[in-house]
């Protein structure tokens, strides 16, 4: 007990009155609570399909809009976490669930989320008739779908890699399943989960902007937020408003980064069992503030107590059951296995059969082949983009990465830019195309990779900065020429990192094709030839058969190239070019 009192009192030793950090921190906390409460009220407003919610381009409204957008992000994040904890965990614990969930997530990852939006919007409006909650949910779902798969997959992988000894220790000391989950699985995967979430944020911002102003079945749905603000600005060709929106978004992402993720990442450091290599510690002024503030430290301790109580909730405690012989279920195991496999097979055949029937019944073959060629056009764009993007950013990234001082400045900027929703910048490019009468089919292409290119850059920087010093010195020592040095050392060295960046960038580009192939400025509408444009056009018309065809085709193409090109390259990078 004396010990308890000691730690408790240490926080208070010296002065009893709060220091000035306390006051700042308190104001900060109160402000955050008040703003969130206001937001919750706005969401429950009545709404009917076809009703147009007035959006004003007055920049004074922007902070309010930004807040609406941010809270949509937060809500989606909470749902993504819930999904991760249930399905990611389930897949990691049960072999049967694993065989179903993991391939599902794999496929869901390759579905263009925006293409799905038209279907989910209709569904959610039916679910909450007469309330704005319907479209709100659809927007939140779009963000959720851009994050949850990635997070769940990452969580599944880390939970499976929990050391066997930790599991045995938990068994040995009779922890219940509930206690094991919160004491071992969640903390163990925390650093990876946070990093994954941070990376998924960028896709999230992109989705939230795209889904706030959305046209489905000839109806324009507008949700108050930055996305609809910029939609209106584009429609009325208001350059100033666009710049305001971009500025607001920059500030919002900066705050998100500084107030939410940096502190969390700095905090998650304690969950790492060992400091790996010379990895630089993430510092956060907010975390320091929390550490140094007496009041907040006290609150932090209360949180720990709360977490303790949560982990030890009585109903989830392990019953110390009398040492009983386990039921001889093992005997029926093959039967269960057989039944389960049969069930899955029937479901899969059913879905495929229905899809085939639906498509054959409703779509002439000519349409299918047309969609296929549109798909090839978009595929070609994606490939050219990734090559161009690599030619530019690999040399830059290596140059930066080999210079630690430069990298320290550039790396956070590249990560920051990656989080910025590139669709806000589209109007700027469109203005140029309109002004100089450039070819639409060629010049909308760069839009697809505007946001995703930064992944290539910051991954290459990371890769170049971990090339061992002694290898570089050997290269100097042997007097390797520039080309030989690149071919034998630098390119193989950054390859695994480059692959990670490139695969993420390609995924982003596919998703972006839906909004990048159809762009607008005022009354001018530029439409490129491609699958993305096809889907978007049919969405506006509410033609669900053709939407399904377009999405299906995109899915197949994405899966096909993932399996045939990207996965083998990634495996090669992981096995052959891993430096360690």
């Amino acid at each position: 007990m004396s010990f308890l009192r000691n730690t408790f009192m240490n926080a208070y030793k010296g002065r009893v009155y709060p220091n000035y950090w306390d006051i700042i921190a308190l104001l900060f906390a109160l402000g955050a609570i008040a703003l969130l409460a206001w937001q919750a009220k706005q969401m429950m407003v009545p709404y009917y399909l076809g009703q147009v919610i007035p959006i004003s381009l007055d920049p004074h409204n922007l902070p309010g809009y930004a807040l609406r957008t941010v809270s949509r992000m937060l809500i989606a994040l909470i749902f993504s976490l819930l999904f991760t904890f249930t399905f990611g965990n389930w897949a990691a614990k049960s072999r049967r669930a694993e065989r179903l969930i993991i391939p599902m997530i794999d496929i869901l990852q390759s579905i263009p989320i925006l293409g799905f939006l038209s279907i989910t919007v209709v569904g959610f409006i039916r679910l909450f008739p007469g309330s704005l909650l319907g479209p709100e949910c659809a927007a939140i779902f779009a963000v959720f779908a851009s994050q949850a798969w990635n997070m769940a997959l990452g969580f599944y992988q880390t939970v499976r890699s929990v050391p066997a000894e930790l599991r045995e220790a938990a068994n040995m000391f009779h922890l219940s399943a509930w206690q094991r989950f919160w004491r071992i699985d969640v903390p163990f995967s925390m650093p990876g989960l946070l990093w994954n979430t941070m990376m998924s944020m960028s896709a999230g911002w992109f989705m939230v902007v795209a889904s706030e102003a959305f046209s489905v079945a000839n109806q324009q749905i507008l949700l108050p937020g930055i996305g609809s603000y910029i939609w209106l600005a584009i429609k009325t060709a208001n350059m100033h408003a666009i710049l305001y929106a971009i500025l607001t978004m920059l500030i919002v992402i900066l705050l998100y980064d500084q107030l939410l993720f940096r502190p969390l990442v700095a905090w998650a450091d304690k969950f790492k069992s060992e400091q790996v290599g010379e990895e630089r510690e993430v510092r956060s002024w907010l975390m320091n503030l929390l550490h140094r503030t007496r009041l907040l430290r006290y609150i932090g301790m209360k949180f720990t107590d709360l977490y303790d109580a949560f982990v030890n909730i009585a109903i989830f405690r392990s019953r110390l059951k009398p040492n009983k012989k386990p039921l001889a279920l093992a005997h029926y195991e093959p039967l269960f296995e057989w039944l389960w496999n049969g069930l899955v097979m029937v479901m899969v055949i059913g879905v495929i059969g229905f899809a085939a029937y639906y498509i054959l019944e409703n779509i002439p073959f000519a349409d299918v082949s047309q969609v296929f060629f549109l798909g090839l056009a978009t595929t070609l764009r994606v490939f050219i983009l990734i090559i161009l993007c690599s030619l530019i950013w690999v040399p830059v990234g290596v140059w930066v990465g080999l210079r630690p001082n430069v990298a320290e400045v550039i790396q956070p900027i590249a990560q920051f830019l990656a989080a910025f929703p590139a669709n806000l910048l589209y109007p700027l490019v469109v203005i140029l195309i309109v002004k100089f009468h450039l070819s639409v089919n060629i010049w909308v292409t760069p839009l697809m990779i505007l946001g995703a290119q930064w992944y290539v850059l910051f991954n290459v920087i990371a890769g170049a900065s971990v090339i061992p010093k002694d290898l570089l010195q050997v290269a100097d020592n042997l007097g390797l020429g520039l080309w030989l040095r690149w071919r034998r050392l630098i390119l193989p060295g950054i390859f695994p990192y480059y692959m990670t960046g490139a695969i993420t960038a390609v995924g982003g580009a596919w998703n972006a094709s839906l909004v990048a192939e159809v762009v607008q400025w005022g009354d001018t509408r530029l439409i490129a030839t491609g699958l993305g444009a096809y889907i978007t056009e049919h969405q506006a018309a509410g033609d669900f058969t053709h939407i399904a065809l377009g999405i299906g085709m995109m899915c197949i193409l994405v899966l096909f190239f993932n399996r045939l090109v990207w996965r083998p390259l990634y495996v090669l990078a992981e096995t052959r070019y891993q430096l360690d």
Partner: protein
Amino acid sequence: MQSINNDNASPIIEVVNVQKSFKMSERQDLLVLEDVNFRMNEGEIVAILGKSGSGKSTLLRIMAGLVQPTTGTVFYRGQPVYGPVRGISMVFQNFALLPWLTVLQNVELGLEALGMDRDERRERALKAIDTIGLDGFETAFPKELSGGMRQRVGFARALVVNPDILLMDEPFSALDVLTADNLKSDLLDLWETKKTGIHGILFVTHNIEEAALLADRIIIFNSNPGSIRGELKVTLPHPRSDLDPRFRNQVDRVYTLMTTQTQAEQIEGHTPLDIGYRLPDASVAEITGLLETLNAPENNGKMDLPDVADTLMLDIDELFPLTELLEILHFAKVSKGDITITEAGKAFVEADILERKKIFLHHIKLYVPLARYIYEQLTRHPRHRALEENFLSLLEDYLTEKEAARVLRTVIEWGRYAELFAYDYNAGVLSLENPTA
């Protein structure tokens, strides 16, 4: 302390006819424990000594209730064990501490699971921390501590639940020698002063001296499948010194017991190995080094195994694979705790680099069936090539996936050294010709 070995007293733990096999494929089971029987009595420290992969850790986990035996039963104080039981506590090889919890929270973990309220939990944890000598580190995180201190946390966590029996899985093997010695003597202190309510300690180790230093009884384990080879009582009083001739004598006896062929083996010994034999994890450079030591003038081709272990600073996990390979290749003979170089071994070690390769080639073709099999398959194939997967799946009929991969890697290394065949890592292809890269 003199052990109170009374075979008539009711045992704390009794292991009856325990077998354990893992399913390898539809038709093949891998037997890791065969017919294990023993009892652990009140007030005993028992060591289970064996090579790595001998199934001794599996046996410990079966006793802990973490793993279910395929057949047979473990009784704890007369009750069969079907899962982790209260009263049995465990210390792990790599500590198994939760890095995100402080020392205090880690120690509290087991009490938390029992649903004890906070104050009582804290009080008992602090007492255990006190006992084990961790005062002042209550708020530290495991990563701030050295290995020895971490294992102390492991001990405190195991002791705080007031166990009846303490099981330890190679508890000192992740520590350096000095730290391990320090922790061992502290543990013995605790045991002898009866500061804890423990009635028996059972630990698994591959370190002979450690077993002889701590245990009242050493149970020696066979590999493939794991079974009890023999047991040895150590009656020296504590504290034992490793310089004491009586202690050296005990160590010698253990080596002798481990290397003397049993009758069954003597009969079996003449049958050649089969393809799926679990080849020892030894490299050519290592056996060459060992042969050079043996062949040195001062040793004159014969050495005592404990001396070999001492001179070359090898523990039995490192030493026995080497001696096994030397025996397989007929380069040396091991018997009754001694190792003697053969004529072939002498010829090998005295040859130059190229000549050595020739001798080695001759011997693995003759004595290692797997190497010979691979060579024959390659000769038969029209283009003298074969995928490594073919051999891997063959081995997986006999061994676990991990062991099969290890054995194949080992034999490929020998084959490459002997220039029996070539191997392309990227393609995973074995061939007779040298790569043209």
